[in-house]
């Protein structure tokens, strides 16, 4: 019984995923590897041969590389701040968690309202007399401004996801550990890096993996702020699936997103490996 127990516990989730994920997933994989009924890598060569593939690939990678570390630091900061607070904790946590409830489409809408030419940012600058006519931020020549705006919007939208996971994890770390370290003269920073962070590894792992998965699927916010000028992998997937109606190439794009996500998740799993003996 004990040996079978883990498998029994995994059974419902596995069966469920088998039916509702693996079956349709298998069909899409087949689609990515066939063209007109024949097995081929043609879809992948078409994909990589298209001139937008390279920019879409690198934009996605760069966005992830910039956004996720910033979010990790912000989420850790928010979680620590909340933990240090004596009053108003739950109110502050609620405020920090608000962006959780906002879909990526709505987030794109909000940030476009800020950055567009007649938007809030220009209105504020205008009312302070900094500018006398609205400046244009999201023009296609200012690629780095668009990129920055997308980064800000993504950081705003999705930091709460990591924060909630980390807060829940921090709550499980016994205060005694930190107090003991304090007795031995560890500074606040040392206590954070030597005690809290190592004990937080399972939560960090989870938060990072989930966030990275979502980062590679970034789409709605980029479309809202960048329009056509900032291609990303997910946007190209949509483009091929619906506008160009070439499901094979769209499936190939999806495989690239999948490959990237799994590869980066495995890296996180290795880096933040939780050895059994090292648990609390």
């Amino acid at each position, binding site marked *: 019984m004990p040996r079978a127990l883990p498998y029994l516990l995994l059974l419902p989730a596995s*069966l469920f995923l*088998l*039916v509702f994920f693996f079956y349709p997933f298998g069909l899409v994989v087949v689609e990515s590897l066939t063209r007109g009924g024949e097995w081929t890598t043609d879809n992948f060569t078409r994909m990589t041969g298209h*001139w937008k593939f390279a920019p879409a690939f690198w934009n996605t990678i760069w966005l992830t590389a910039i956004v996720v570390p910033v979010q990790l630091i912000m989420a850790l900061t928010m979680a620590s701040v909340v933990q240090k607070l004596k009053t108003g904790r739950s109110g502050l946590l609620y405020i920090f968690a608000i962006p959780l409830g906002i879909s990526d489409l709505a987030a794109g809408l909000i940030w*476009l309202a800020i950055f*567009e*030419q*007649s938007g809030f940012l220009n209105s504020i600058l205008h009312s302070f007399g900094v500018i006398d*006519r*609205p400046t*244009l931020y*999201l*023009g*296609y*020549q*200012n690629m780095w401004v668009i990129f920055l705006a997308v980064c800000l919007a993504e950081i705003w939208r999705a930091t709460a996801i990591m924060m909630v996971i980390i807060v829940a994890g921090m709550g499980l770390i016994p205060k005694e550990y930190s107090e003991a370290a304090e007795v031995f003269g560890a500074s606040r920073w040392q206590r954070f890096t030597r005690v809290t962070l190592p004990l937080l590894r399972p939560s960090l792992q989870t938060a990072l993996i989930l966030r990275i998965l979502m980062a590679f699927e970034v789409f709605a916010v980029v*479309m809202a*702020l*960048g*329009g*056509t*000028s900032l291609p990303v992998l997910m*946007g190209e997937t*949509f483009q091929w*699936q*619906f*506008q*160009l*109606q*070439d499901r094979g190439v769209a499936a190939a794009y999806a495989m690239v997103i999948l490959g990237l996500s799994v590869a980066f998740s495995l890296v996180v799993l290795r880096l933040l490996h939780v050895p059994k003996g090292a648990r609390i």
Partner: protein
Amino acid sequence: MKTRLKLSLLITASALISTNAIAETLFWSSQATPIEETQAMREQVLSGFGGGVSFQPADPGPWLTRIQAELGAGSGSIGVLGALHGDFTPLAGNLTDLSGVDASAVSPGFMELGKLGTDDQKYIPWMQATYVMAAHTDALEYLPDGADLMALSYDDLIAWAANMHDATGQPRFGFPAGPQGLKHRFFQGYLLPAYTGSMVTEFRSDDAEQAWNAFLELWEHTNPASTNYSFMQEQLISGDAWVVFDHTARLADAFNQQPDDFVAFPAPSGPAGRAFMPVLAGMAVPETASDKDAAMELIGYMLAPETQIATLRATNFFPVIDVDFPDDMPPSVQAAGAAIAAMSGAEDALPALLPVGLGDLGGQFNQVYNDTFERIVLARQPVRAVLDDQADALRRILEEAGAPCWAPDAASDGPCPVN
């Protein structure tokens, strides 16, 4: 085995939860998706249909996925499909022949388009629109000397945009080059035919090169945020753009909200004429529809003159049949109607037809024009090299689809050639 058991359990459970008992015809539409239009379609257009109808609009992605799924499953709940000409081309093989529907009032040209290059009536025209220009009245003082607003040329337009740019210090021309913008139709049906008299054959000619260079010049005076614009009515109202080009339905709000501030006028003309292109939406019945008679009855209802006028009020798409307009049409209809009349009635009018016979390559055909735009205008690649390169892609698509030429290109035996 277990999977099957689980599934059958789920079905039993779902029977408990599901509440649908549909006797109504499901009208699955990729048009009239904006929420106000949906409301108007249900309350003002379809409420008069006796047979019962459920109007459900969807974005292009879900719209296509749903109908593909129903066709794949071999059964479904969709009775009538409503969509643009281009949306139907990949579905042509799975649409019921509608020659039994009385559509004699619809112009034969449109009915021919509805055959999608086959012998069957694949869809019945539903409503039409086109692209026009619109401007804020403040922009009119910068019109170049001697230019006639109702008969502009591309050179006039460029000079106008340059004047506004010089005078106000900001590029004031706006163009819907965003992700949902309809820019490909501008290149296919307006810019290229106006310079070359052709959409496909002369794609890489010297005249086409001239057209793109003219567009590059116009782009100098175009608001660079245009790559974010999809509905020019928003930029007209906010003042980010003063002179714009877009679909009549996507300009309507500006005229309806501030009728005195905006004017509509025809698309400009080039050396080969004043080219323009219709937008045609149609209605079709998928093979999987359960009650085809009810579906055809609904299509018949949609073609009645009163329904067509109600549809115009709801969606800003014009009737496909001849109707007498009442006097109380909204300002958007009056403004656009006058511009369209001036455009199609112009001496140098050069109507371009929607692509036919491309099958599921329609999207890739459009992409050739979009890619050409992005490479020449946004990436600043040399015009000649891009045209040569994209002409190869265009030729490959037309040969693969085996599509003969359509207007304004001269008819061809076999696939339309790209010189």
